[in-house]
């Protein structure tokens, strides 16, 4: 992508806050992938003798929960699930929303009207409310939950990409290439799409932390990831009743969630600033 390659030199200009964020994200992913090696326990292994041990205990680095399960092991699995749900979910929303937006902008007419109406409907219902509604009626399977989280923000992609497509169509080079005799497929695939993809990418970085927060919130309410599976939010919901006595059960997963969302946001902001500048200088 020409845009990003033009900013290769910019990598050196990354402010320290963004660098720390990148490092944290790497560490988090590494933790999720390889953290299991740090502890001999499985995330479902219970032990009646070692319940509610605080962090720093001899055999359990981060302590245990009410059922004697190693918190570190649970955090690793929780991190895995949270990551998977967040990334897959955001991708689903991004792809579906963007496709619909581009189709609406390209076809206009009745197709556009239907898509715009769907966007309007979604825009008037916060995704968490929709999720709660559907979870009340259907059994909470992991697939359903994943789809619901995926729906987070699709309507924003749709709106953005529709607008971008409409304005791209008016660009000089699109008109000129049309006059050259290019087929609509060529125009869209070679000339319109590559130039508007940046917008979707930017929105992706805004959306990803929100998806993390949505998943963890739903899991915290007990309506998200269900046992025996666990996620960072789910761990927090289990520990919530013992907030005063076993604070590590809520604050440690909570801190992980917070720093993950924060790091992704900071990276996203920085990317957005860089892409915006190159976008502007090219127009």
């Amino acid at each position: 992508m020409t845009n990003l390659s033009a900013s290769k030199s910019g990598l050196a200009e990354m402010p320290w806050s963004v660098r720390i964020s990148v490092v944290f994200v790497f560490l988090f992913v590494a933790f999720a992938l390889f953290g299991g090696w740090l502890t001999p326990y499985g995330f479902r292994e219970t032990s009646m003798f070692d319940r509610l041990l605080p962090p720093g205990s001899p055999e359990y680095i981060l302590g245990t929960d009410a059922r004697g399960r190693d918190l570190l092991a649970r955090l690793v699995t929780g991190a895995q699930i949270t990551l998977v749900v967040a990334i897959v979910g955001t991708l689903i929303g991004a792809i579906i929303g963007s496709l619909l937006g581009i189709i609406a902008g390209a076809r206009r007419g009745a197709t556009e009207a239907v898509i715009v109406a769907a966007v309007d409907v979604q825009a008037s219902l916060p995704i968490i409310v929709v999720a709660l509604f559907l979870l009340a009626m259907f059994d909470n399977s992991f697939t359903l939950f994943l789809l619901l989280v995926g729906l987070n923000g699709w309507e924003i992609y749709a709106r953005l990409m529709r607008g971008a497509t409409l304005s791209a169509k008016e660009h000089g080079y699109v008109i000129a290439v049309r006059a050259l005799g290019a087929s609509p497929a060529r125009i869209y695939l070679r000339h319109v799409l590559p130039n508007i993809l940046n917008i979707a990418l930017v929105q992706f970085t805004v959306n990803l932390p929100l998806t993390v927060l949505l998943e963890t919130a739903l899991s915290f309410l007990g309506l998200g990831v269900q046992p025996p599976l666990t996620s960072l939010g789910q761990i927090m919901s289990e520990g919530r009743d013992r907030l005063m006595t076993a604070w590590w059960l809520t604050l440690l997963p909570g801190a992980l969630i917070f720093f993950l969302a924060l790091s992704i946001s900071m990276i996203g902001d920085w990317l957005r600033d860089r892409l915006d500048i190159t976008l502007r200088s090219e127009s």
Partner: protein
Amino acid sequence: MTIDESTGRTSGPVLSVDGLTVALPLSGDRAEAVTDVTFQISAGDILCLVGESGSGKTVVGQAILGMLPRKLPVTSGLIQFQGVDLPPQRDSAYRKIRSAEIATIFQDATASLDPVQRIGTQLGEILEVHGVPRAERSERILDALSAVALEYPERVSRAYPHQLSGGQAQRAVIAAALLLSPKILIADEPTTALDVTTQADILAVILRLKAERGLAVLFITHDFGVVEEIADRVAVMTEGRIVEQGAAAQVLERPQDAYTRKLIAASHPGSRQTVPKDAKPILEADNVSLNYHVGGIFNRRKIAAVRGVSLNVASGRTVAIVGESGSGKSSLARCLLRLEEFDGGSIRFMGEDVSGLERTALRSFRKSVQVVLQDPYSALDPRQTVRSAIAEGPVIHGMPRAEANRKAEALLDLTGLSPQAADRYPREFSGGQLQRICIARALALEPKLLIADEPVSALDVSIQAQILELFAEMQRTLGFAMLFITHDLRVAQTISDDVLVMKQGAVVERGPTAQVLHFPSHPYTQELVASAPGGASLAPVSAI
């Protein structure tokens, strides 16, 4: 400055700029924005500061008002107003001078007005801020609005900026500038964005104000035609320096400096070697109409963009379509290019009816009719190399890529660009170079008809002449017919054999260019010709 005892009037220059030098930050393309600029303006004098973009002319205006950006410091020089040194930049003392003694108007009048406040309120604010008592304000506002020949000044006063036309907004802004009877007006390209007829009106207003009030004016422009209309004195700037300065008549008739001569030549139309008229028409448009439908479900309106236009163009000849904004000339071009489906009439290309063409036949048609657009900066896909952009046409029509690439390189050479340009991206080129690339792209398909929609309007004056020359040369070499759309009569005179004048979607006059422009018969054409800045010199100066 001395005061005449008997009349009480001051003599000596109103504004005196001496050795003004303003530095540029390190990232700039030269060390100084403005170097050693010296000039004087007396009461009742209009000094035109002429230069192209980047010459530093705007910086001079900003410096006089104390409104230079922080990054551009004044490193030396003196600015005196009525004999008194102006304070260092950004001093709050400047605030009292602004508008009261030195007033400014900018290029985009509507943008220089607060969009959510009424005109009257904004004018009132100027009076309030300079201590004029409330009781006097509305009368002075209405007086000022009338002084600039705005009809129904009360209505204008109650209006919002978006409700005014470009010309009305500019007059309102001039009225705002006059409220406190300043001694000097700095006008920074105030008519550049306006239609030719509106421009003529605004220039007339300024001339009247000079006559009635003895207003001194520093008029910044790039257009020598405007200079011919209103200047008493001229200063020509390039690369931050004044290269020539003097009385208007002298600079215009006997320019000493090479750059000045180049600018003057660029604003004077050449004449054309015409091709014999008996060539058979390639394009025949008959009574073409196009309507646009705007508005949502509840307020649909029909706008007639093109109304019953007929024209024809023959091989090797150029027809110019002249009109102001809203005349429908661009919409007509889109119909001729089959980029827009027209509603009435017929268009025949090489004898064949174009409106029914679909798919393969339409593709074929596209090979023969190509377009060059107005804005070179957005006419090329920023992600494509120059070679790829030029080669794309032939590739779409089946030419093998290697051959198309060679063709692209040959065309680069033909249009005056270096072979290294082929691997570069559009953002690395200037406007003039980009337009050459667009011409190369259009010619890659060897069209029989080239439609150019205002291709030089966005370019600097001196570059315009080069690009027009390129069009003419290409046409001589390759023999295509050309339809050239422009709002600038001088351009039409330089480039075309025949001209069509359009107004509000319809053709009001047509004929051989020389005849229509020298002896216009329709009142609108007459108005256009009369309004053309430097219009008296539409007579050809040099042949192309």
